[in-house]
């Protein structure tokens, strides 16, 4: 399992990383925890000519109380998200969802920023941040910009990040005391979800999103609207697959995925008390 040849540079800061990748051109990639990129490279499904290693930018690993929201550095490991007391108090859904990522080895190496930037619809965290109405802070050559999670995921493994931009921070509003649920259905403990659901309700905000039900992590808008309109969990969940275009694979047919989405959304709404 030997990757194709590539060059390697290590960045000391987000600014340096962005500058290095701008010089390196289109075939360069950021390397954070390496748990999505390196397997693809070993299989030669990805063949970047340059890796900019951002994994040692120490000041991008943090979980901070930022007043109305929690700020999470992009290089924070899943394990730190999973065990953060601050997140457990204010955004329990995110900490809980992080505990479902891969296995303990993956969670000790993989980063939240890497997972979100990779934009895999089958990953647990992109859909969760979407349900939570998070904001993504991005460093580019001309400074920072903020992208709403709802605008971030553009296609299969495609995000709104430009080639010379780097995700630096994830901001999640505080949902202290909210009801929430994370449902993940898979055949083996460490796998990607066949279908997953993140749901939260807090002071009139309703967020329900789906894992692996489309080319992108998806808001279950019809479900959210029904819940906001006072529908029961069962009635709202019946709308779970509306607007979704799931794919068929070795684990699940399209019909089965649609069915699972309805079952899991109902369970999530019930468990969380969202509906």
């Amino acid at each position, binding site marked *: 399992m030997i990757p194709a040849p590539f060059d390697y540079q290590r960045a000391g800061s987000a600014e340096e990383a962005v500058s290095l990748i701008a010089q390196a051109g289109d075939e360069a990639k950021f390397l954070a925890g390496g748990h999505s990129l390196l397997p693809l490279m070993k299989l030669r499904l990805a063949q970047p000519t340059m890796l900019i290693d951002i994994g040692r930018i120490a000041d991008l690993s943090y979980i901070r109380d930022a007043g109305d929201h929690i700020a999470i550095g992009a290089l924070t490991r899943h394990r730190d998200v999973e065990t953060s007391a601050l997140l457990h108090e204010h955004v329990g859904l995110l900490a809980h969802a992080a505990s479902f990522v891969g296995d303990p080895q993956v969670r000790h190496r993989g980063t939240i920023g890497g997972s979100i930037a990779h934009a895999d619809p089958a990953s647990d965290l992109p859909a969760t941040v979407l349900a939570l109405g998070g904001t993504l802070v991005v460093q580019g050559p001309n400074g920072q910009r903020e992208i709403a999670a709802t605008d971030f995921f553009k296609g299969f493994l495609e995000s709104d990040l430009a080639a010379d931009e780097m995700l630096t921070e994830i901001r999640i509003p505080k949902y202290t005391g909210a009801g929430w649920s994370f449902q993940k259905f898979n055949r083996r403990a460490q796998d990607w979800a066949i279908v997953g659901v993140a749901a939260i309700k807090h002071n009139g905000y309703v967020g329900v999103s789906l894992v692996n039900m489309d080319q992108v992590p998806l808001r279950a808008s019809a479900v959210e609207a029904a819940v906001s309109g006072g529908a029961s969990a069962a009635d709202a969940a019946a709308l779970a697959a509306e607007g979704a275009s799931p794919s068929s694979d*070795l684990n699940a047919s399209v019909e*089965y995925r649609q069915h699972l989405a309805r079952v899991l959304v109902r369970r999530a709404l019930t468990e969380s008390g969202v509906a």
Partner: protein
Amino acid sequence: MTMTEDVVATPFIGSRRLRREDPALLTGEAKYTDDIPAVGALHLAVLRSPHAHARIVSIDVSGALAIPGVVAAYTGEDLASQWAAPMPCAWPVTAEMKNPAHYPIAMGKVAYVGDGVVAIVATNHTASRDALDAIVVEYDVLPAVIDLEDALSDRVVIHESAGTNRSYIWELHPQGKETVDAIFASAAHTVSERYIQQRLIPAAMEPRAVLAMPQPFGGDFTLYTSTQVPHILKIMAAITVGIPEHLLRVVAPSVGGGFGSKLNVYAEELLCLVLARKHRCAVRWVEERTEAATSTIQGRGQIQNIELAADANGKVQAVRVHILGDMGAYLQLVTPGVPLLGAFLYAGVYDVPNMSFVCESVFTTMTPTDAYRGAGRPEATYAIERAMDSLAAKLGEDPAEFRKKNMIQKDQFPYTAMTGLQYDSGDHVGVLEKAQELVDYTGLRAEQAARRASGSKKHLGIGVSSYFEMCGLAPSRVLASLNYSAGGWEAATVRVLPTNKIQVVTGATPHGQGHETSWSMIVADKLGVSPDDIDVLHSDTALSPLGLDTYGSRSLAVGGIAIVMACDKVIDKARKIAAHQLECSEDDLEFVNGTFSVRGSSDKSMPLAGIAFEAFTAHNLPDGMEPNLEAHTTYDPPNFSWPFGTHICVVEIDEETGFTEVIKYVAIDDCGNQINPLIVEGQIHGGIVQGLAQALFEEATYDAEGNLKSGSFADYLVPSAADVPSLTLGHSVTPSPTNPLGVKGVGEAGTIGAAPAVINAIVDALSPFGITDITMPATPNRVWSAIQNAHS
């Protein structure tokens, strides 16, 4: 599961002694093939066909040769003169069997995705890998053949030289085909079932690896390889490559699992040898994991049609079986024999007087199949155990009670089966009842009834599987009757060194089984020494020139007995020396705890330590006796060994999602006397998980073009510890009457028992929907779809 600690006890046999192999394995100190240094070795990489079936139109290796470090690129034609013979198949099951010649690198045509097309040698691993991407091959793509019935139709003939896709047809009708047909025609009850044994990818923890080293003088070669069969490989490689056998040494260093997949002679082993010979330097290769999915053999691959005929009392009178076996693209070492190993077990543990068995085997454009844990016997056990449940359901009988009624009863042993084989011992009703008690069968049935009455969406299912395993391969004469090209004996040497330390040389080849631990326990008890004073030498044809290696649950029941017999010879010789020195008759000596004493006069004694030194100095030995204290034996077993047992699996199925959770699993296995119960439990745990994996998780899936869709561990679902239930093991001990240790095999038992127990449980849970079968693996999607279809 039981917590264990190291136990030092006499006798050692029967104690839960920790495995002496484990510290090195667990700390990474063990040396696997790829850990062995070889200065200046060239690295082999193999370009593999991306097509299931194609003619090779042209190959351009110029791009590869331009990469710095790449030394040479060879097509099949380039290497044609290197082969003294095609790749070996040691099991021509019939005289008419079609076995198209094939070579380590394909010539002219590829027949499966993964077939070798170009061999690259380079000065480093990276260059060898990069070179593969720079080779341009033009293919004329031909239609793939992935369906067994389609293969049988000869719509597309894969091997023109064979003229057909059918490799062989093998039949067994001990009572006559007409007799069995007549029983079916007049039977009170019959069932006719069709089961699919999906292909499985063995997935040993250590992928294959090879290092071939020419020795500087004398023209001899050492082949290090991750194999289960260094002895068999030495012979086959010598024949195939044309290196005289006495100049070839094969070593299997630490081997990280095999499960049958390393019971073979592989293209890369032969390639490394010929390229080492050609380039006059060491050549090494290590398999990539994705490569392993297509280029190491796969297991199973059968369509089974099984019919049972029973009389009015529900006693099974005949079993009629037709198997369609998937050989894959070519015949590997024992590919065609695998279905035959199961042929004798299609009546399982039951007292069935008549059988009829036909196996047709076909070539397909997929990876060759071959032995995989159980090899033929899990398939047979699955078919009979599923069919027995179907017949019980048809008759409205409880599956456990129906089994008991049909089982060979304890007082019928030794039992001559309708195939002519002798079942030497067994207590099938006993182990089934033990398993029922351990799992609380009555209580579970009551809970099941209560849940069904309540309309619960969590469906409880209870699955029973009773098995008989024909293992301890094997009496050489029986193998001869099956046209197998080798014997089934095993060799051993026991050598007492001058300081009373012991060397045990075994022809068995452990690759995870713990033979060093078990063999030292056996010898410690025999010779009255500590296991710590015993070294076990193995897996190197220079150290143990004679052997037939490890597969088919044979090592203890054959190799272990050879060691016992060698110990007996050592003791006989030592007794002669003791009698000579103590000036007494041999008959007056008793040998206890490593010391010979004259009966009745306790002051006259001689320890083995003293005898060993006397044998070494040879100053005072009986007239005519050879110096030194060592003995060699070769043991050919008089019969297979016949372990048996019952597994009961309890599942809960979520009707909404189709997810199956195994909530309880009980196994009663009887492998005769246990040398080390800790190792026995490990074998059963691993075996059950492998069977459970076939039932619930694993499947090598191919698309219509013959591409493997489950070529990574993201798609090929090997379960981890998190995915399997806690296993509750009990056991029963029915010593084998055919060997002095009273032992039977246990390496494959768990796998044989498990898959039918799980599927019987799932079908039992779903029976209220009218569901009578489910295809393996019983994925949540399949279970959900079955329920949907039943509703509509």
